[in-house]
């Protein structure tokens, strides 16, 4: 079912991970990604895994949901791993039929899998523990210096907030329309490519109509409440860093530095 796509889904909760300032979580995620790309050995990947596991434990999201988030990209992960296995040369390890697998290749493939999987799980953890509203709020505040350069930061944040808000609604709607057309015998699973593309028309037409209707209604509703852009707009919940935010940020910075130093030492 489409519903099972967990992209950008938020699991409400009241853990430390949920209560942190969204700016903290955004910055920690950036640090995490930087560190992940600097990790070059089992030791540094171990540090990264420790980081991820701690974050997951604190957030109480559960590994099942995280692993489910990997589902759409399994193919890409396996594909890159296989390519690495075949093309990287070095010290021979085993020979299967015509292919010789090298030690370096296995290492690179394992690292590649770890890197992509941990990258996705880490960023999903951010969206799992941060509501879309808080996420865009944090992003807008972090990027607000760019307003000086006349970048439409507020408008972009508002667009992102609306898009995130409507993803689940549209998925739900798609599910409903699909079921309704299936009830009239629509068949989305058989036939050639052209036939399958044609089978999408009964879904896409109603979906577009409803998306436009919603957009129209939302725009009217916002205008009725005198929305006129970011100029002079104040916030209901002003973001404030607390002690725990500084602590977590410091910890993330130390971990990132450690991974980079480990990389320099060839570990």
């Amino acid at each position, binding site marked *: 079912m489409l519903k099972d796509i967990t992209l950008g889904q938020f699991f409400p909760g009241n853990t430390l991970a949920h209560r942190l300032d969204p700016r903290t979580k955004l910055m920690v995620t950036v640090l995490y990604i930087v560190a992940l790309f600097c990790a070059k050995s089992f030791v540094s990947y171990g540090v990264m895994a420790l980081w991820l596991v701690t974050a997951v434990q604190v957030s109480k999201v559960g590994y099942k949901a995280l692993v489910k988030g990997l589902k759409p990209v399994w193919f890409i992960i396996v594909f890159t791993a296989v390519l690495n296995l075949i093309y990287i040369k070095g010290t021979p390890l085993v020979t299967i039929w015509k292919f010789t697998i090298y030690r370096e290749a296995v290492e690179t493939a394992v690292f590649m899998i770890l890197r992509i999987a941990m990258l996705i799980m880490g960023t999903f953890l951010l969206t799992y523990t941060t509501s879309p509203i808080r996420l865009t709020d944090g992003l807008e505040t972090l990027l607000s210096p760019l307003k000086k350069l006349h970048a439409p930061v507020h408008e972009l944040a508002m667009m992102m907030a609306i898009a995130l808000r409507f993803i689940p609604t549209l998925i739900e709607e798609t599910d409903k329309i699909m079921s*309704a057309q299936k*009830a009239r015998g629509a068949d989305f699973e058989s036939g050639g490519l052209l036939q399958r593309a044609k089978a999408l*028309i009964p879904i896409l037409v*109603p979906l577009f109509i409803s998306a436009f209707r919603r957009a129209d209604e939302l725009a009217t509703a916002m205008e009725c409440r005198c929305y006129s852009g970011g100029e002079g707009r104040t916030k209901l919940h002003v973001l404030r860093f607390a002690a725990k935010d500084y602590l977590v940020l410091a910890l993330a910075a130390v971990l990132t530095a450690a991974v980079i130093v480990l990389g320099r030492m060839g570990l």
Partner: protein
Amino acid sequence: MEPIMRVENLSHVYSAGTPFQKGAVRNVSFDIMRGELLGVIGHTGSGKSTLIQHLNGLLKPSEGHIYLAGKDIWENPKEIRNVRFRVGLVFQYPEYQLFEETVRADVAFGPKNMGLSGEELEQRVRHAMEDVGLDASYLDKSPFELSGGEKRRVAIAGVLAMHPEVLILDEPTAGLDPEGRENLLRCLKSYQQKRKSTVLMVSHSMSEIARFSDRILVMKDARVLMCGTPEEVFSRTEELETAGLNTPKAARIALALRKRGVELPESIFTMEALVNALAAKKGGGGVC
């Protein structure tokens, strides 16, 4: 009467194994008799929509079985599309599923998927439009230029044109004005009687259900609370009220009168029956 469909110990859990896990239907069993109009009623969130999506195989039971004419519909999963033609399901707000350029093409979508074409297809489209009370002048219009009520009828016609053995409607009158509701319900009732078809209708209006159903199924918190004829169900007016369900006005008045010592049968649930019963009492020199 014999059952055309049988639901046995049906349970459905949404998002099993996630923090959002939710048992929407719990151990539900009931029969749908051939040729009856079965009304299903219950609060929002009591599992009505979930339940009916099992009847044509859109949802797969987490537990339990559904039989259509004695055969488990999931016995051969490849045949499920056939079940969908035999059990027609009209979703809530079906007008949002219209997509074709003309009403004719939209109504023909279902029967076309069944492999029909030519004269037979055209006949079915015309008959279905008649059944929902729209004349042939609508056939060449675009569905998007119709009024809300007309769109709803066209969408229902799209399912009727498949000639389902069992017709299921999820809150067909939701969002219509009182006149539109009345008209649509009359159409559906006459369709059921004329075509000797079996109809299951979900509603949250007790008075609609009371007037048009042959039997009533009451859902509460994912379970079946009661199932029986309107007389049987409304004789338990007090129980329905404690369950937080509206009862027909006439049943409530009768209950209040009974509490004040007026002797009235427990099976009264239409104004007509109430007036008759009171008139009979008066004629006989009763309390009134």
